């Protein structure tokens, strides 16, 4: 395992300490229970927005805490959801008197721990509302499974939700926008190489030197189909087809096109995907009115990427455009 770490079990604590020092003007790291909150504390009268999940999806953790996005975040161990205690603490840090929205990624562990966290917060008389994100179309939605997974689209959801809370929407309205945002988006990804979780010391999965996996999960959960390497255009078409079909996109609609890198895939490869997807969408008569390309939700150093399309209306567009100041996403301020 070639990594720039000291003792594997100290990695998370050392990284978080470094992060919070480098960004002390934006985020504050709280111990026992561990969570990140905005440097200035909760904003009085504003709906608090928190999220949380396993570490290793960078720059998640503290990276999206700040004005215009999250008020607090509860980071778990690598790829493992945070505990109810952490979620409770993050909720309390985010509470400005107007209630707190839990933005939960749809994994059993996350859902269970957030449920308990919400119970603890409600015992403190904090009003909690929950939205469960599930943008990944790789996994068929069906009443026989735990539903779809949440992947890169979650970051755009956090941005939009955070902006709604920032402009003063109340808890019911922020929750409604959160659900609408989740319904408006679909994502599918692929991986070329696995990552190594420091505390596991071994690759998260094995892929042959000439294989790629479509629909891979961001924790290395097996995907939909393992296929031989294909050209970027074919890969992009496969992802885009699934996404377009799920959204039932039609000509004349406005969308955000978002290519997300999983860690080790160069930006240039992400833009090659963007180039193809934008040509295909334009050929369908779909208008790409907003774009996002980069490593917004990684799986450590996995090589691979995902493609998200989000249907935009005027309100979602203005929330997407609203000022934001976090370590991982900054614009307009």
């Amino acid at each position: 395992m070639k990594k720039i770490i000291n003792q594997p079990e100290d990695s998370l604590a050392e990284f978080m300490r470094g992060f919070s020092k480098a960004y002390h003007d934006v985020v504050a790291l709280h111990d026992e229970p561990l969570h990140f909150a905005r440097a200035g504390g909760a904003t009085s009268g504003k709906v608090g927005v928190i999220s949380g999940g396993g570490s290793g999806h960078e720059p998640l953790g503290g990276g999206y805490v700040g004005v215009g996005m999250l008020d607090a975040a509860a980071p778990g161990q690598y790829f493992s959801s945070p505990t109810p205690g952490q979620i409770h603490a993050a909720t309390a840090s985010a509470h400005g008197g107007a209630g707190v929205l839990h933005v939960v990624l749809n994994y059993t562990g996350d859902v269970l721990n957030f449920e308990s966290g919400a119970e603890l917060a409600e015992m403190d008389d904090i009003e909690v509302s929950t939205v469960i994100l599930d943008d990944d179309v790789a996994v068929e939605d069906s009443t026989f499974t735990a539903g779809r997974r949440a992947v890169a689209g979650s970051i755009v959801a956090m941005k939009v939700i955070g902006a709604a809370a920032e402009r003063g929407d109340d808890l019911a309205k922020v929750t409604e926008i959160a659900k609408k945002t989740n319904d408006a988006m679909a994502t599918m990804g692929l991986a070329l190489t696995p990552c190594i979780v420091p505390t596991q010391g071994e690759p998260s999965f094995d892929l042959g030197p000439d294989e790629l996996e479509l629909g891979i999960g961001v924790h290395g959960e097996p995907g939909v189909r393992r296929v031989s390497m294909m050209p970027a255009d074919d890969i992009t078409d496969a992802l885009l087809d699934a996404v377009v079909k799920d959204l039932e996109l039609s000509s004349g609609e406005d969308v955000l096109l978002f290519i997300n890198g999983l860690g080790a895939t160069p930006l240039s490869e992400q833009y090659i995907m963007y180039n193809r997807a934008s040509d295909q969408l334009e050929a369908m008569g779909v208008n790409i009115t907003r774009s996002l390309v980069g490593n917004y939700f990684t799986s450590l150093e996995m090589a691979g990427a995902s493609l998200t399309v989000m249907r935009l209306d005027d309100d979602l567009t203005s929330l997407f455009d609203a000022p934001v100041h976090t370590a991982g996403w900054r614009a307009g301020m």
Partner: protein
Amino acid sequence: MAVATLGADWALDWMQRSAKAVNENRDELIRLDRAIGDGDHGDNLDRGFRAAIDDLVTASPDGPGEVFKLVAMSLMSKVGGAAGPLYGSVFLKGSKAVDGNGELDGTGLAEMLAASLAGLQARGKATTGEKTMVDAWTPAVEAAKAAAAEGKAPAEVLRAAAAAAAEGSDATIPMVATKGRASYLGERSAGHRDPGSQSTALILAAAAEAAESLG
């Protein structure tokens, strides 16, 4: 001849043996979880049981009920993942089923295990056949009840439960998951053992060993 009731010493020994078993099988649990999940089950439980043992050492629990309650709290506050709250419920409901801080006879054990399973299902909403740890706990509880009904000693009740859990875990291999992370794979989850059912089998085997070591 086997002892007739089990108390705090047994409960502590069980937890210590569980921690050891999980630690020794950490890589195997990781490997199982990597095949149909995200590969952290071994790490989650290893971290959780270490924390539980640390907490048990500083506290001095008076009876098995207190031991289980402390373990439940440690797992819920230190583990995260699905296993944290699920095993948390297992031990929390188990602890509530232990009358006061009394000792447990065969029937008491069977009742405690049944309460644990009920807690697990209340939390995770899974039933048998969904390829989760419920598929190990359910036959374990049935076996324990049957052994207790036959008047078997605690060690025998637990040995029956452990054997049934191991078989229940084997039975998860062909199943298609419909709960938990493995359910995202649909049909592709078939052909792999559920990691949580395996950790359940390890933990129940540790319970039996702890009882058997009392002579």
